[in-house]
């Protein structure tokens, strides 16, 4: 077994430097690598390009990096829910590249899978396709999209073992699996790091080969954005 365990979040994020491109898992605040984001705020790396479906909220998730102006460019599909983000974007402080959500997921997966480019119908005839090659397949136009390049992929899983195998929970899975192995180095923070051999090989969502460093997060706040309930 190839051991991917690192002792803590500080060791996990070693090598993240100013100007790098990071992919970060999560949908809204669900399934985000909280511990790693916290550590990035702490070390104060700047001029980051972040590829993530959303940009967090004002005081949590990637919002924390935005507050400290550590992000130069954001690649995302949806960035509502964040006033500071909107302010930085409209003032021109923050560069923003909006991408259809499925294209975002597929460009990560393409990087993981060694597919340099693929065609998708999403965004044809819109701003998103401007400057991109388009092509007809079976009577329908498609846009050529390329695999993302990133220095680090930073993901959050539910359980993991020292071999780097990951299992996600519920909708906290989202973008995390497709980002594993998509960046040059993949960091996984897990709620529970279990001994090798205790996960069923048949039920592993992401094999450890796609993960370079794994650690158990010290604390997971797991904030809820829209608490919707019904009464009994």
């Amino acid at each position, binding site marked *: 077994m190839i051991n991917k365990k690192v002792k803590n979040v500080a060791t996990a994020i070693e090598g993240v430097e100013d100007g790098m491109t990071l992919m970060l898992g999560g*949908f*809204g*605040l*669900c*399934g985000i690598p909280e511990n790693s984001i916290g550590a990035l705020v702490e070390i104060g790396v700047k001029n980051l390009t972040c590829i993530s*479906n959303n940009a967090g909220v004002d005081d949590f998730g990637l919002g924390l990096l935005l507050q400290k102006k550590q992000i130069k460019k954001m690649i*995302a*599909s*949806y*960035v*509502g*829910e964040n006033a500071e983000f*909107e302010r930085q*974007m*409209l003032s021109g402080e923050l560069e*923003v590249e*909006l991408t*259809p*959500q*499925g*294209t*975002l*997921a*597929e460009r*990560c*997966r393409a990087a993981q899978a060694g597919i340099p480019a693929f065609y*998708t*119908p*999403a*965004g*044809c*005839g*819109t*701003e*998103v396709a401007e400057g991109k090659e388009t092509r007809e397949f079976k009577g329908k136009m498609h846009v050529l999209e390329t695999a993302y390049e990133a220095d680090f992929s930073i993901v959050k899983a*539910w359980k993991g073992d020292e071999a780097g195998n990951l299992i*996600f*929970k*519920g*909708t*906290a*899975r*989202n*973008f*995390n*699996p*497709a980002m594993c192995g998509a960046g040059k180095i993949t960091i996984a923070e897990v709620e529970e790091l279990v001994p090798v051999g205790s996960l069923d090989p048949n039920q592993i*969502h992401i094999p450890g080969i796609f993960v370079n460093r794994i650690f158990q997060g010290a604390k997971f706040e*797991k*904030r*809820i*954005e*829209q*608490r*919707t*309930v*019904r*009464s*009994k």
Partner: protein
Amino acid sequence: MGLDKDTIAKRIAQELKNGFYVNLGIGIPTLVANHVPPGIAIEFQSENGVMGIGQFPFEGEEDADLINAGKQTITTMPGASFFDSAVSFSMIRGKHIDLTVLGAMEVAENGDIANWKIPGKMVKGMGGAMDLVASAENIIVAMMQVNKRGESKLLKKCSLPLTGIKCVKKIVTELGVYEITPEGFLLVEYAPGVSVEKIKNATEGTLIVSEDLKEMSFS
């Protein structure tokens, strides 16, 4: 005058057919789930990675790891499944979803839709909407027909940046039900108590009135 949002959703629910996999957008579309006609089996997908969405959880039973694309806490039905975002959009792009219901800022008479950006003012992003409208065979727009400034959202041509081209098939608003045809918006149903005259005034694009025009029915 016209329908409230929940009744728009109720009218759209009539379009659900047994065996449909359905993706509901944020806003009015979300309400459609409350009006599934009895006796038919429908599964609701949310593009953040769940098929088989159930009701909202009971208070105290919310799970931060279980939300829909609107970031609301949810529950799942028996037979549900979780999957990653790439698989989720395989369902969407691969045309496995039977019906997509989403909101819009503008719809053009050729089926173009705009719902993600107001240049210089608001840019929330397209989320999964561009993938949905580019792929779905069956797209219904649920929206109020007139914006806050009293302007029609059924247009000859969209003025805002597009989300997708020639993709909308049907529109349900507080005033009527419309189909996109080569000739323009075909009014097929009007809301109870709403005149065709009123509808014409609230439609900037070309409006044609169906020969089979009828009042919406909610029996």
